[in-house]
């Protein structure tokens, strides 16, 4: 019987171990709701991620869009741009992911709503933080998240038109879905409400410049200016309602009148607008660290530079774009025979924005001519050569040697004062206030030493649009501008490049020029809007597809 007692005690011992509730584990690899929403430092971390996901930059904010227009050709199809340029987009090939990967598109329906869900989760829970004090910091975060949600919805509006306006936080228990799409105007109003909420909170500037890069009053008002300019534009303002143009003008003027921002740089230092972090012209920007690689964001200098410099020539400037840069005297460029060097005496911005044959760059001149170091006949990775004979020079700090480290610090300027001038000029020109329009248009030209413009009516509108094309090239505006102006099909004109032939064959200074087609493009009328992924419509038939897609 003694043994029996021992056994019983052993069994009890084990039961005793089990009583310690070994299964009651807490996650040790992550934070939980209890931690996050009562700690302002952790809430800040939550908001940081929303910034990361909603402020787009170089490839998804600029070049990817430019390559679907008359600005650029995408050499490697990093954002599936060529699917659109070739008119092959369907509701079935719209996958998107964050961060953007090789097979991803810029559709971003899924990723934007995922970020919107985070903003909604923020508003659902932020009340808990009020109980722990630090009211000012928390309040500012509310303003920032209102701004970021507005930014996300604006990105959706630009792509799809009106979209479902989701403010609720869905749970795993939601099993039926019948959200329909709001109209364009309803979506605009929703975004405006978020902008107004953020504008009521956000400061003009942060006293500690360590906070540069966070949303400010200026950022909120700049977004409002862009939104209202779009809303007034022909494609969305079908009745040509002048009050919309007035609202757009007022919104742009509000930013200008903040008195916080000034045009930065001059004809020779123009590129410092982009390379000097948070300079006086910058309203809102995203900066990248020189110590952490963010592939295809801060590997920009390598990605854009020609093969002869060990770069990738990832985005190539089209001949159409080059030709649209006027001569320095303000007259349009033309291939009047004989042009011995088409790159002489152009708008100073041409030299800041575009790397062309003969351009000085990193210790030598670029050689895009046939057989040159940067051509597809080069001995240096010819498969990385530009297909058009040009690459982007804008944004690049030429003093940086990306051969030592492929990534560097850099800045994507999301909103800058120059755009506000152009927004204002466009609205005033549409309203017929030529003087006001020209005043701001010429400020932009004067900075780079271009002669003043004059004009009225539709001629002036054309001048504003042309100035916008030049001043804001590759910054992600063109794709949406040609849509709101109702002229999106010009983006599907065949992409042109230039063939530069040395004469005689061994010359490095004398060339003949021949324009050729780099990419035969196909126009799909549906592409005013992106297709909504088919899955959404299958699950929720109350979501209607955009016209032209099936």
């Amino acid at each position, binding site marked *: *019987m003694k*043994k029996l007692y021992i*056994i019983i005690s*052993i*069994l009890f011992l*084990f*039961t005793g171990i089990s009583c310690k509730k*070994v*299964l009651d*584990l807490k*996650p*040790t*690899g*992550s*934070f939980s709701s209890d931690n*996050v929403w009562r700690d302002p430092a952790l809430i800040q*971390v*939550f908001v*940081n*991620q929303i910034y*990361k996901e909603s402020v787009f930059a170089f490839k998804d904010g600029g070049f990817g869009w430019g390559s679907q227009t008359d600005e650029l050709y995408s050499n*490697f199809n990093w954002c599936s741009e060529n699917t659109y340029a*070739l008119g*092959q987009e*369907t509701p*079935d090939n719209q996958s998107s992911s964050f961060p953007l990967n090789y097979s991803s598109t810029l559709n971003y*329906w*899924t990723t934007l*709503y*995922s970020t919107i*869900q985070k903003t909604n989760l923020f508003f659902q829970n932020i009340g808990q933080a009020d109980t722990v004090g630090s009211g000012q910091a928390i309040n500012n975060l509310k303003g920032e998240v209102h701004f970021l949600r507005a930014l996300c919805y604006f990105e959706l509006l630009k792509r799809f038109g009106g979209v479902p306006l989701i403010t609720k936080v*869905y749970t*795993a228990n*939601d*099993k039926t*879905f019948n*959200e329909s799409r709001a109209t364009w105007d309803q979506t605009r109003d929703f975004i405006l409400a978020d902008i107004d909420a953020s504008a009521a909170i956000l400061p003009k500037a942060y006293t500690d410049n*360590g*906070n540069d890069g966070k949303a400010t009053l200026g950022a909120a008002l700049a977004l409002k200016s862009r939104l209202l300019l779009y809303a007034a534009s022909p494609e969305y303002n079908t009745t040509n309602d002048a009050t919309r143009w007035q609202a757009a003008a007022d919104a742009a003027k509000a930013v200008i009148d903040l008195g916080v921002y000034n045009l930065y740089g001059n004809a020779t230092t123009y590129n410092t607008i982009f390379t000097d*972090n948070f300079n006086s012209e910058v309203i809102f920007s995203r*900066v990248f*660290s*020189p*110590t952490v*690689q963010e*592939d295809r964001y801060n590997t920009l200098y390598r990605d854009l530079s020609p093969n002869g410099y*060990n770069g990738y020539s990832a985005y190539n400037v089209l001949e159409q774009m080059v030709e649209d840069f006027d001569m320095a005297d303000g007259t349009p460029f033309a291939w009047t025979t004989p042009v011995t060097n088409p790159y002489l005496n152009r708008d100073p911005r041409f030299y800041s924005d575009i790397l062309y044959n003969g351009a000085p760059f990193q210790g030598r001149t670029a050689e895009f001519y046939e057989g040159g170091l940067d051509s597809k006949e080069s*001995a*240096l990775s010819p*498969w990385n050569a530009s297909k058009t004979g040009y690459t982007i020079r804008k944004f690049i700090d030429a003093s940086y040697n990306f*051969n030592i480290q492929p990534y560097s*610090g850099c800045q994507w300027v999301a909103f800058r004062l120059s755009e506000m001038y152009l927004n204002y000029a466009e609205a005033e020109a549409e309203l017929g206030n030529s003087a006001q329009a020209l005043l701001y248009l010429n400020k932009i030209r004067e900075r780079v030493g271009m002669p003043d413009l004059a004009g009225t009516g539709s001629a002036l509108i054309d001048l504003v649009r042309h100035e916008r094309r030049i001043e804001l090239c590759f910054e992600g505006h063109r794709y949406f501008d040609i849509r709101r102006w109702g002229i999106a099909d010009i983006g599907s004109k065949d992409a042109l490049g230039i063939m530069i032939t040395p004469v005689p064959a061994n010359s490095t200074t004398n060339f003949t020029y021949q324009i050729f*087609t*780099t990419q*035969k493009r196909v126009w799909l009328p549906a592409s005013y809007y992106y297709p909504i992924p088919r899955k*959404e419509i*299958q*699950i*929720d038939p109350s*979501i209607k597809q955009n016209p032209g897609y099936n």
Partner: protein
Amino acid sequence: MKKKVPPKKLGLLVLCCLLLLCCQQAFAQKTKSITGHVTDERGLTLPGVSIFIEGASAGTTTDQNGYYKINAPDNATLVFSYIGYLKKTVQVSSEWNGDVVMVKKAGDLGEVIVIGYGTRKKANLTGSVSTIKGSELEKSPVANVSNTLAGALPGLIVNTPSGEPGVDDATILIRGKGTLGSTSPLVVIDGVPDRGFTRLDPADIETFTVLKDATAAIYGARAANGVILITTKRGTAGKSTLSFTSNFSLSQPTRVPKMLSSWEYAQSANEYDQLVGQQPEYTADEIQKYKDGSDPLGHPNTDWWKAVMKTWATQTNNILSLRGGSDKIKYYISGQHLYQNSMYNSGTDYYKNDNARANIDISATDNFKIGIDVMYRAEHRTGEAPGYDANAIFNQLWTAYPYLIPVYPNGKVGVGIGGGPGNAMVYVLNGGLGTTNYDYDYLQTKASFSWALPKITPGLHLDGYYSYDLNVNQYRGFDATPPPAYSYNSATQTYTEVVSTVPPDLTISNTLNYSRLANIKLGYERKFNKSSIEAFVAYEQQQQKFNELDAYRTGFLSNTVQELFAGSTVGETNNSATTMFARQNYLSRISYNYDNKYLLDYSMRYDGSPNFPAGKRFGFFPSISGAWRVSQESFFHSSAIDDLKLRASWGKTGNDAVDAFQYIQTYNLQAGRLSQYLGAGYFYGPSAVQVPGFTLGPTPNPNITWEVATTTNIGLDMQLFHSLSVSVDVFRSNRNNILVPPSAAVPDYTGLTLPDENLGKVQNKGIELDLGYNKKVNDKFSYNINGNITYALNKVIYEAEPATVPGYQKATGHPIDSYLLYQADGIFQNTAELNATPHPVGTGVGDIRYKDVNGDGVINQLDEVRTNLSHTPEMLFGLTLGGKYKNFDFTIFFQGQAMAKAILMPGGLNMAEQFFTGRWQKEGDNTYPRTFNGPSERSYGSNTYPSTFWLKNDAFVRLKNIEFGYSLPKALLSKINMKAARVFISGNNLFSIDSFGPSFDPESATGTVNYGKYYPQQRIINIGANVTF
């Protein structure tokens, strides 16, 4: 309490009855007392053999030493029967001395089979169990145990997706797929779950058992995908045996793709340019130069496979073991050293595996036994630079332009496809870009006791064990600054040097995991009369902890010192993480056996898993199984059938293999670097200071709980003609509450990261047949044939799908992983056809024509149709032919699958040559579409749509293994004090019959589309020798 009749007295009683019966007969016939000795073929005594007089119901059994005594009439016929042995009948005669030699049955029914938490004689199994001996697995010369299993056991579906040394684990399915979630079976080694088996020394494996039906329910919550039980060898009493085996192998890919030559590449590129409206890149003159090889430096033609891969890679495997012991102490001690080279030509890659094991059994007293098991394994793998795992390397290899030169005649290394030195394949594969080093150290210990308690009541015993497994892993990835590479300019005949000055960086990641398991079991075994009972109750508890610590620095001044201190603190990162895990289980089984005729088992398990919220944490998993050994019945008389058994089982098993904490919202901190190429978080301030971010875990599912499988199995085991064994099983398993995220049913606009939900339902059913035939022709020659075939068909009964999905696309009603494909209808041969048929934008003559399934005049995803076959084969078979002639022995093992489909298509330029030569060029060409892939992995048009055009029949028969051996004559060996010596030659994956052509292996790497871009499956030629002292 009713007084029990002790067995001894019971025997006496039986004897009395017997005598009485005999007396009755004595009136008619004279009786005679017969004594004798019963042995097996080897002369070993057989205790417990039952002896009956034919026609009478009485009998006796042999005693401990195999002796018996029985009174029988003259001319009576005595019937000797013993489990696992053929029935023997002897006519009593004066010549007969009473001794009997019994012959083992073909299927070895006396064999002891490991089942969950116990063992059972094969004849008395009630469940569906497949077993294979370790010695069979040893025959295959592969380094990874999981690659020896295909076709070896009925019910196992095994696929080897990669041949890379050290990362060549096969995927294993037991009876196919039964769930939409995790399909991995539970692996239990010596009673301890979560011990990986693939890297075990196969010579250490005593038995490999697969529990396929509801009897796996004794493992409760993790048993729904079946259970694999492995026991390692233990000591045996007797003179110690020292065994040494040495193997040397050569391996090479089963198939080497024949890629495009440079002129074909240039031609394709031009055709692609034309297709997308661009200028052709190559002139006719250039193509001619590529074709005729007249300018080998300027217009080369490189076969990258030949340039950077070896024809044969080597592998050595040496195994030493010592086995022996006394009545008190028994031991098994072994060691293994395995070394595998990679197929990369100049490669620094290799894999090394060292195993050591000691299993000791001590009998402290007659009633108290102790076991001490220790295993230590050190694995080391050196790979190429970080970011260049096998997939990346083979991706590059497939992409590599044939017009690039790997190494110029003057020894200068050419640039790679990225242009810089950093992308030169030559550098990638010889460590020029850096190396990765993986060290995996495993220490697995187990202390066990078994305490018989006959004083409390006979048959009662208390067993227990405690295991402590420690696993230390280290990863080191060093990115070196590559040496310069060179481009040749044929116009100027000069080399341009491309120099990289990217500073080296180092990532170190250490993980330390441990697992502690305690098991205590109170068992009772007793025989009453003809009945015997076995029962136990047990408690088991497991706790696991995973610790991770990693660090990163860049800015190293040189490639030489690869430690963190040598790097710069600018940009450094570090990180740690801890994860805990635990389980709690209560289990019990009761087994009843009546006269080895009627067998019944009932088991139950009450399981707790922390993957689920309180209240949903515990699950109850019962199972009942029974068997009727028909051939044991007295009415059963058959000269053909030696043994016949019917089996049936039913039970519930669970699956909880999902991420933990899905019932609460988690926030995962993202800081530092997410990968080599991606940073975490955001940046504020003029100097862009990095701040962390949070990504969200899945939206909480407070109701998450077990996946439950209800499994029914009916089986039949037969022994025929003393040499043929047949086993048939029919099974059905219904899986409910399957844990999958309902991603097809929730729109993306909700923004949700979906948690697993208990939503799916799957039915899996099938049949298994196992046949064995053993024949000893004479003393010199014997042979055996074993075959098995498994057919398992699964069907999704319910999956969350929107109602608007057309019927012909629904996953419901189709097998798991069934393809959703456009229906190819040939190739557009001319413009008239093209214009008359709906087609996607960009389609032209020479492209695949798709059927407009829904007839809406548009080709889009709604025209995809769900197919009925998937990548998972529905049928799997194996056939072994073995034989012995004098001192020679051989084994030939074929394995194969049927009723499976795989997609095989070119994943861009470069590609296998067959796609180029077979491309559409003119009306009438039908093999492949026109060129649609361009350089830099771009493609145009709709040919890349997943369609039936690229779907291939994935049935194959493989000569999986073949072995010839020669054992040295015993007479010779005894002179040098050697017990046995054998030399052998073997081959693995020597050939296969399939429809995958010359460039691809039918066992593709991925479940969906096979582009061939992975470390290919290997063919192995092996020679070896084994000596035993």
